[in-house]
């Protein structure tokens, strides 16, 4: 019963993410309209099933007459790019620091732990807004911001895992057999910590998408012309009573994407868990 649920979860989330990835890649070819093209005569058109809809604009238009569907497809590119880049880099940085801290201990661990404590005293959203203000708007800034703020997520967990693994017998055996400390860490401990890292990675990707959305929402992401889901949501929020579709559809896309990343992680965790296998 648990197995079946885990499988379903895995397939559904992988399915959505796969479709999203395809949409993002093929956006220039499958989008019905130019996401930046404005047409003030077609402003605030409702989605196709409502009265007064404009044919060809399936999900309606925003106040400047831009096609919502096309903007969502192009927004997917930004979202996935941030997810993959920010997720992987913060994983590398955080996991490495956590592994070193948890395995090598000593003053290195003390410094890292103190650093993590200080980091966690900052409200994450505020910290990211601050960083974007420093770094200036742009995709690279978002990615750097996510890495700088969330590396602690990996570091903490990996450190704890590395510490408990480091105390185990197989590590002592490896050391006795003549392996150096770093060598032991990489060859013996890392493979056992890897499942945890992978799960956190998918989680982080979901978080990266959210951070980008929040930054766009507060008008701090990339330039205001290029479509981002967060930007669309911000616009939609201000016109929530007049044109709900501008808010609802990017919200659904964002919701499903974040949910999928998280459930993907959960599903992978179930696969990796030797007890359930």
């Amino acid at each position, binding site marked *: 019963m648990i197995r079946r649920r885990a499988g379903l979860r895995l397939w559904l989330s992988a399915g959505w993410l796969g479709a999203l990835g395809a949409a993002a890649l093929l956006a220039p070819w499958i989008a019905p309209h130019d996401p930046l093209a404005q047409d003030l005569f077609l402003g605030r058109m409702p989605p196709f099933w409502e009265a007064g809809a404009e044919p060809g604009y399936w999900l309606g238009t925003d106040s400047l007459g831009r096609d919502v569907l096309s903007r969502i497809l192009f927004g997917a590119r930004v979202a996935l790019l941030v997810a993959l880049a920010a997720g992987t880099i913060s994983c590398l940085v955080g996991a490495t620091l956590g592994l070193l801290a948890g395995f090598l201990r000593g003053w290195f661990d003390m410094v890292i732990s103190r650093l993590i404590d200080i980091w966690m005293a*900052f*409200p994450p959203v*505020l910290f990211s807004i601050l*960083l974007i203000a420093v770094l200036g708007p742009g995709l690279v800034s978002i990615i750097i911001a996510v890495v700088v703020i969330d590396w602690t997520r990996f570091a903490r967990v990996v450190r704890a895992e590395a510490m408990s693994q480091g105390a185990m017998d197989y590590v002592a055996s490896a050391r006795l057999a003549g392996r150096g400390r770093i060598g032991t860490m990489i060859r013996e401990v890392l493979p056992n910590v890897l499942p945890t890292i992978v799960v956190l990675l998918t989680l982080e990707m979901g978080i990266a998408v959210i951070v980008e959305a929040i930054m766009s929402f507060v008008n701090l992401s990339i330039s205001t012309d290029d479509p981002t889901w967060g930007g669309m949501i911000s616009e939609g*929020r201000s016109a929530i009573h007049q044109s709900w579709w501008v808010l609802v559809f990017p919200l659904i896309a964002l919701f499903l994407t974040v949910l999928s990343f998280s459930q993907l992680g*959960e599903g992978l965790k179930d696969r990796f868990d030797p007890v359930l296998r």
Partner: protein
Amino acid sequence: MALLRLIAIRLLTTAITLAGVAVIVFFVIRVVPGNPIAMMLPPGATEADIARLSALYGLDKPMITQFGIWLAGVVQGDFGTSITTRQPVLGLVLGRLPATLELSIMALVIAVLLGGVSALIGTRGRGGRTEGAIDVANGMALSVPDFLWGLVLMLLFGVLFPVFHISGRVTPSLDLPFVTDFYLFESLLRLRFDLWADLVAHMFMPALALAIPLAAIIGQLLKQSLKETMNLDYITLARTKGYGETHVILREALRNAVLPTLTLVGVQFTFLIGGTVIIERLFSYEGLGNMAIDAVINRDLPLIQGIVILFAVIFTAVNLIVDLLYAVLNPRLRHA
């Protein structure tokens, strides 16, 4: 005695953490491009005007000196003056603090109620469909951050079925007789239930959005803890005395199951407080978080510092309270 030693060590590490936060924020924001003075003055201001005002705010001095001056001020309780509003930072920040505190605590209460009830129901119906349904609900609630829940709630109960307000802390036309900024609390003390109802109607959506992920965590953890506790020997013994399942869960198991949940909830509560920044913005709620975003956009350096420090203080205070609570509730630790 052991307790005092524990407190002393905690205070020391807290001081180091806060010092670290202060240093980081101070220097980070001074790297920010964009001159707050220039942003404040009307266009057409001369270089001399800008220079004069910069000197007034001490922004022309080297960074280390600025830090020294600021630190000296802090020790005396002076957190500087806000560049955008020309008012003392401490006053501004403390003025907005109650709103955010009330929102966070309301969210915490909602989360504990929702999570607690779901855990109890899940334990009572464990192994069956009830528990399965609760697990699915929890999984979804956990996967989606407060920001998205805020938007969903806004659409559902602000637009589709307009029951609650989706903007602001209180209806602007109302006359407020309060002396403190703790509106919610004071309205109860003064027995002004009309005002209290209006406040709740505004606060409920943002508080619920903040609460949902925390409720899921509490629900899952408490349920797990309760299920494990239900297998212990003293529970079996209680059953032989004639007590029913519900009584056993509530009176015998709950107190022991709550303890492991507590520390994680404490940490998660600090995340909740951090979430107020974007939720307040979303619902135009006049709290600390909303002010913080404006401060960053306007490059109001002293204000940014003050707010970040305050958040850091709140986080460390919450952690301390949680640890103390744990020590009080666990009889074993008290006598250690």
